[in-house]
């Protein structure tokens, strides 16, 4: 073992534990990878690269996966062909693969199924691989060529990122969730405020968050340009992982005296229900300031906000209410675990009685591929993570990002709505 030269941030500590290199900030390290996966869009080209590289076997069949979620169930012949190629390769290799009906959005399904664990390095051919930071795993997205190289070698190179410490002070109100907090952060530091860097979350408001809220926040680290968004794994994270783990793991923590490139402080107690207006996730506004914006569609789901906590909040908000006549509401649980639980608890019935459409777990309309594409001039309030030009359909459509409570309230009124306007104060959202 190398002697410890300096106190480490969580990103530095995880990289150091996976590398023979020194892991000094800014240096490039070769690291061993614990888990590496592609989705149904990135798998096919990754397989081509894998073969070009001379790859014969993935480095470990239990640590390499393909998660079909983007165009699932397949929407046309081309997407079916891509999925077929992925499925065949997975079968030949004997690696992890799950069919529609047993899978979910990759970043909801993989932690839920215990495949990504605290202290690990997770590489995914999908930019929202940063989601695993909620568990204290160094998750980061790459392209299909990098992913193929990991499948071959079981390792990759990482530049050791500088770390921005994010301190959420105080306790937020019951109307505030992880989505409001992360949009507020991106609004403050900008969409490249963490470019090439690690975000490390601390503070009283973070300790109080549910795991699902933390997944939401880690998921959007990339929207600030971040390489990863890490939560030091506390008891909640360890309980979550221990209940689900497919292998043993060793949680890793930052040193007390770690050096951060900067510290950003946010007073969580002053946050209001927040949205991000088109066309950047950093266009943060208080929802109540946007109440004149009429909408056509609401999407509640995705790897950002399609988990239990999100379904629970949306169901509690929509119980006994109707979706506005002019609005289409799409609810897509992010996995079958979430879907089944929502069925058991009666939430799916609440949604359908409110006039929502329920779709099978998948990425849905988030990236404009499938299940709820927007026409020219249409506007959607979405619990997903990106609102770029054309993201959900026509180049002249608009996406407004929000958490599940703002989304549910907006579905009821037909315009961007602060949930406090629709739901009575004191109504339990817990």
């Amino acid at each position: 073992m190398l002697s410890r030269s300096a106190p480490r941030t969580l990103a530095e500590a995880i990289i150091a534990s996976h590398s023979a290199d020194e892991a000094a900030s800014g240096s490039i390290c070769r690291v061993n990878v614990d888990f590496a996966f592609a989705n149904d869009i990135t798998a096919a080209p990754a397989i081509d690269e894998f073969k070009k590289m001379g790859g014969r076997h993935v480095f470990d069949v239990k640590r390499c996966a393909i998660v079909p979620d983007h165009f699932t169930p397949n929407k046309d012949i081309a997407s079916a062909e891509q999925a077929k190629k992925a499925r065949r390769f997975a079968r030949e290799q004997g690696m992890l693969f799950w069919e529609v009906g047993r899978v979910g959005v990759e970043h909801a399904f993989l932690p839920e199924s215990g495949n990504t664990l605290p202290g690990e390095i997770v590489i995914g051919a999908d930019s929202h691989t940063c989601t695993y930071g909620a568990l204290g795993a160094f998750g980061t997205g790459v392209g299909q060529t990098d992913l193929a190289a990991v499948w071959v070698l079981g390792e990759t190179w990482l530049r050791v990122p500088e770390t921005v410490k994010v301190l959420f002070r105080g306790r937020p109100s019951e109307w505030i969730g992880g989505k409001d907090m992360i949009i507020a952060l991106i609004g403050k530091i900008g969409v490249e405020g963490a470019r090439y860097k690690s975000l490390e979350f601390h503070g009283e408001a973070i300790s109080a968050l549910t795991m699902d809220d933390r997944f939401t926040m880690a998921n959007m680290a990339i929207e600030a340009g971040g390489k990863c968004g890490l939560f030091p794994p506390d008891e909640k994270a360890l309980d979550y992982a221990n209940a689900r783990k497919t292998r043993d793991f060793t949680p890793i923590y930052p040193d007390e005296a770690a050096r951060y490139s900067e510290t950003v402080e946010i007073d969580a107690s002053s946050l209001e229900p927040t949205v991000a207006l088109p066309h950047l996730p950093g266009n943060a506004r208080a929802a109540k300031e946007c109440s004149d914006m009429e909408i056509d569609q609401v999407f509640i789901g995705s790897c950002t906000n399609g988990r239990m906590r999100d379904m629970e909040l949306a169901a509690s908000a929509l119980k006994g209410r109707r979706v506005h006549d002019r609005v289409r509401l799409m609810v897509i649980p992010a996995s079958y675990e979430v879907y089944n639980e929502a069925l058991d608890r009666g939430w799916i019935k609440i949604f359908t009685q409110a006039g929502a459409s329920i779709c099978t777990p998948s990425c849905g309309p988030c990236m404009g591929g499938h299940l709820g594409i927007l026409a020219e001039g249409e506007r959607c309030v979405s619990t997903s993570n990106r609102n770029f030009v054309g993201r959900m359909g026509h180049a002249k459509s608009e996406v407004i990002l929000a958490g599940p409570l703002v989304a549910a309230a907006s579905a009821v009124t037909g315009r961007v709505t602060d949930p406090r306007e629709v739901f009575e104060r004191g109504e339990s959202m817990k």
Partner: protein
Amino acid sequence: MKAENEKILVGDAWVYGDNVDTDVIIPARYLTTSAPELLAPHCMEDIDPIFAGEVKAGDIIVGGSNFGCGSSREHAPIAIKASGISCVIAPSFARIFFRNAINIGLPALECPEIAAKKGDRFEINLETGRIENKTSGEIFTARPIPDFLRHLFELGGLAPYVRARLEASS
């Protein structure tokens, strides 16, 4: 880029603003394929419908800061390269796009001072990082890329590197 390839690029600029994301470089609705020739006709179409039809082989893109942010889709640099673009210059790149560009052999030069108007003629020396805007007469220098990445780029991308590693170990 392989050793035998030209190190001097000459091309006309297509200029874009800050935060050009990979969804506008190549929208997800076209991601049912990764074939370069099928992606190129849709490159940039949501922010610049003219681009795909008028871009000439050898042209360059001068982007704003955080170029290539968003999705990890390698289809984005693949679409740009297949359009005929020889090089992308920007004050800063999103990290996944930058990695992907190097991996597929598309030069991505970081240059905080870069200034261009659409159609400006550029001459770029990939060896030295010298960037000349021949229309305005301004000269810029690209930030050097880390040695390891330069090594990957000179090998022709990540695939040849991995192949060499495999051969060395067998």
